[in-house]
């Protein structure tokens, strides 16, 4: 089992009222799975993904990754966990506007002790695999939506993580580009054995996954 979360509770406080984003949710994900998480807006699916990525906190619950407890309250260890284990992709690509394609993809490596030569060879190899080698010097505003998302995927893969988390990865893309991106995910899952969890509203995307779960009011319903 790659992921095992048990009895996760997450509350949001708005003045006197409390919203239960996660209400005792438990989930297990095997290595090599491609899981789709579906649900309405505000159902808690993105909150779950953020907790799995180590960028949001839980009020209660346990999180095991590869049978090891994730240090949810230790900022430094959590940042190392995110860097080494997780590749994170979001709908708006989360690229830094003043960095070109090469530097955006190289960002995670710069927090580790890689030489310039190593960074160069790793980044260029990955850009080649997502067909962006010729766009290495372009800035995000010079790229199309699909190209931006491929840059984001390349960055998510640069540390060779076991787990890729994607929050509405095709939400900003047209159908053709959406298919291209999903083909990449399928390749990563089937050929490279990556475990992928995708949060989506889109049934067509969910159909391409090996398992689909539905969340409603912070609980898994199906």
């Amino acid at each position, binding site marked *: 089992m790659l992921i095992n979360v048990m009895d996760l509770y997450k509350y949001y406080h708005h003045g006197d009222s409390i919203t239960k984003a996660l209400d005792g949710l438990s989930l297990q994900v095997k290595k090599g799975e491609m899981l789709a998480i579906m649900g309405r807006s505000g159902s808690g699916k993105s*909150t779950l993904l953020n907790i799995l990525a180590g960028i949001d906190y839980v009020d209660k619950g346990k999180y095991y990754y590869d049978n090891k407890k994730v240090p949810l309250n230790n900022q430094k260890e959590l940042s190392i966990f995110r*860097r080494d284990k997780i590749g994170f992709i979001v709908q708006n690509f*989360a690229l*830094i506007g*003043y960095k070109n394609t090469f530097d955006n993809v190289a*960002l*995670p490596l710069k927090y580790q002790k890689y030489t310039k030569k190593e960074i160069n060879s790793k980044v260029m190899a990955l850009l080649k695999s997502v067909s962006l080698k010729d766009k290495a010097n372009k800035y995000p505003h010079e790229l199309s939506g699909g190209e931006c998302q491929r840059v984001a995927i390349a*960055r998510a893969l640069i540390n060779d993580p076991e787990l890729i988390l994607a*929050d509405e990865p095709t939400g900003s893309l047209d159908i053709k580009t959406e298919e291209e991106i999903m083909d990449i995910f399928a390749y990563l899952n089937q050929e490279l054995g990556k475990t992928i969890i995708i949060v989506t509203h889109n049934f067509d995307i969910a159909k391409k996954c090996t398992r689909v779960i539905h969340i409603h009011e912070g609980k898994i319903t199906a």
Partner: protein
Amino acid sequence: MFLEEFKASCKDNKLIFIIIILQFTTALTFLNISINGLNTIYFKKTSFNQSLDKNYYELIDNYTGNNEVAFKNEQDNLKRLKDFYHLLIQNENFNYMEMSFQPLYVKDFQGENKFLYGYKHNQNQPPILLDNGYYSYVYSIQINETTITEFNLKLEDGEMFMETDYLYHKDTPIPVLLGYDYMSVYNIGDEIEIDYLQLRTKIKVKGFLSKNSSVINQDTIVYLDRYIVFPSITFNMDPFNSFEKGIQYRAYLNKVNGVIVANELSPNEVQNIINNLTKISSLNNFIIIGSNNDQLDILNLQASKFIDLTVILSILISLFATISLILSICNKFRRNMKNYAIHLINGSTIIYIKKFIALEILFYMLCANALTILFSYIFLGYFYYSTYILLTTVLIIFLTLLIPFKMIHKINVSTLLREE
């Protein structure tokens, strides 16, 4: 990585970057110059207060018109003047301060017009031709050791007068001190040809007075920055001829027109002592102007008010600058928050981001402080950096870091990543 990110951040927010540096620089420059002004005024105020505690009596000869002609023709006039002078400096009841504002003629003068006698009243005199060259009439003052002590005159460079410097030696250049503004005209060791009371001789630059050195003459502050400060020379030998006697006569007439510093004596007592001394010297045409510190009182009061006003203004401007800087910095870091979120999901830590923010603020401060020192040179004419500026800088850094550090702890990565 730090520098790379910092450069990119500055480049990305170029306008904000420039505005913040300018804000810092403006605030610090104002403070620096205010503190400099305050120091100067405070120093002057202290001098005033010292002067207020003392009683000055000006000794003025009454040899004018027919009296002057008659006295000039008297055979033993020089001897009587010398006797009177020695009685004045040897008297144990008071200190005798020599302060004669007798301009000098300087040969081939290369300085600006501001050094020329009459400049203050737009009445510069053109150089005159004397024997072998053109001589310019420049501001000069002749003083003795008591004057230096009374007005706490300090040197910017060089050496102060020694006892032997007050003695005239024929064919030896007379050592002089120059006002601060002369530093761009002459160097220590320079020899200058002059004419002093028709005595054609050379002076040698011994040092430069500190900026804003001043004396008080007839209740008025006289800044010596543009003055040649001449030792009030004493002639030990008798004159060889009538020409030399004329020189000594004029010099001693200046020397006995000095100021009596008598703290323990009443005006009547001073008057009695002087009457007695003039009697011994067979001189009877001297009057005394009693000390009158009204103007100094007013100056002192004005200085105190100005200091209070400047302190209040400086505090208000510092507060305003600090608040507006904190707002600008917070605005800048709010804009950077999404980038910080991206860094956080790619391996960065909160501590790293904090270091990065601190580095950026530190850089702003370094730039602003460097510019402040540069502006001090432009506005004041010399480099000035008050330690208060350093303390203010540290305080602003501390206050400015508080809010972004708090913001970074509350950073909501998932919400920021969803932002367009």
